[in-house]
């Protein structure tokens, strides 16, 4: 499944900024890797975009935000693969946002 979403907020700053757009595609289990930027249906924070910080020995994913404002990995807690909706593969931002 393909997701096109507009970013709100700056917890993924400077990688993603408020108003940027992303394209993301659902991947099969086992195809999400550490460092991937993913769309997550989080039980507490609802639909969020975060980076996979690590995958523990139980196969659970720990998330992080690139921005200093992001809530910590511990506060987000581990999530399972079913809660990951898709992996970002294209980031659309204004020209002056490009790094």
């Amino acid at each position, binding site marked *: 499944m393909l*997701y*096109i*979403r*507009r*970013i*709100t*907020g*700056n*917890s*993924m*700053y400077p990688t*993603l900024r*408020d*108003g*940027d*757009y*992303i394209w993301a595609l659902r991947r099969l289990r086992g195809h999400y890797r550490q460092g991937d930027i993913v*769309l997550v249906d989080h039980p507490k*924070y*609802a*639909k*969020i*975009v*975060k980076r996979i910080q690590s995958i523990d020995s139980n196969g659970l994913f720990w998330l992080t*935000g690139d*921005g200093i*404002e*992001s*809530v910590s990995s511990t*506060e*987000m807690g581990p999530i399972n693969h079913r809660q990951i909706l898709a992996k970002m593969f294209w980031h*659309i*931002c*204004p*020209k002056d946002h490009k790094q």
Partner: protein
Amino acid sequence: MIHQITKAIDSVFGIKTVSAHCDVPCGIYDPSTMQVAALSVIRFIDQINELDGKELTLADHAKLARLVAEKETHAAKVKEEVRIVWGDYFKAAQFEACPGTNELVHSIMLAGSKCKQTIDRAAGEELLKLVNEFAVSFWKTKGVETFTATCPYPPALDVVYPKLG
């Protein structure tokens, strides 16, 4: 260029959003904002009622329109401020310390709406009373004692303040 095209598509079709909000509750919660808003509602009701029986000039009509608008804005603000503290700050521990908070918050929502519908001062006073109760609960969860004093400005009504320092 691609961003501009996507943005244009978004403005027409509405692309869904995904949150990258800071997600960090700032931790700054204080019931004073809702108390001031509730006092403002009463003050606006008083000023509206001062116009009663008067032959209104064009300037009075303009003033009345502003007073009504501000009364409703501040009644909505009370609801919004309470909703934030209740929704973001109150968790299991706070609910345990202050049983009845959910009912109190619901009462504030109803009282706030009533203040938008009426120019009855009693409705405003009821809203302030409930907000003061909420303030007592809030400060209790912080382990801070409170006291009640008359606010030193119109409408000069009792307000719950924290005993700090």
